[in-house]
């Protein structure tokens, strides 16, 4: 039972354009959502998060949108840079430190 899904395994975007990464979840108990970024041969690093009481959180070039009714969140990166090329994981938490991760989307930003 995959509670967090990232349906696009890969995404390719031109430098300077917007990257939109999507994530869907099924568990209505999730109340906190995080995005992690992972480079090859490294562990994931935290990027941005959002609480279920909000529908948008922005941090520089990164914005996360949450649509609770659709159980959908998205990460927007604008403008995209080649250094953003990485695997992006969304994660959802229902408390007690247990985060459920999606299977990742590989973003490639072309110069």
């Amino acid at each position: 039972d995959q509670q967090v899904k990232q349906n696009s395994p890969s995404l390719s975007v031109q430098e300077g354009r917007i990257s939109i990464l999507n994530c869907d979840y099924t568990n209505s108990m999730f109340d906190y959502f995080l995005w992690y970024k992972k480079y090859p041969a490294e562990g994931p690093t935290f990027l941005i998060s959002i609480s279920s009481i909000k529908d948008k959180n922005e941090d520089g070039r990164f914005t996360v949108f949450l649509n609770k009714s659709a159980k959908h969140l998205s990460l927007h990166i604008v403008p995209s840079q080649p250094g953003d090329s990485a695997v992006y994981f969304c994660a959802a938490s229902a408390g007690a430190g247990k985060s459920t991760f999606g299977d990742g989307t590989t973003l490639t930003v072309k110069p």
Partner: protein
Amino acid sequence: DTAVSQTPKYLVTQMGNDKSIKCEQNLGHDTMYWYKQDSKKFLKIMFSYNNKELIINETVPNRFSPKSPDKAHLNLHINSLELGDSAVYFCASSQDPSGRPPYNEQFFGPGTRLTVL
């Protein structure tokens, strides 16, 4: 200065062997985790310890036994290794286990790639 470190980075071993992976964090965090990333790239939580006590124990074979000698260390011992244990294992830590902001951000180690032949 590495925040969460794991050793070894690569581990190649035969079926049936027993092996350990070590994890240390110097962030002063109370909570540590072990995740398994399989060939399908899913990151699945295995265990979580808070102040040396087990708080999350997912459906993991008994062959996997975590040990936390102190708050800064969480080691993973695996008995009778099987082919299906081949994966990348990530250690992580967080400030507390509540899962509530701002403490639910986890800091990950670089991973240990385990290959069972």
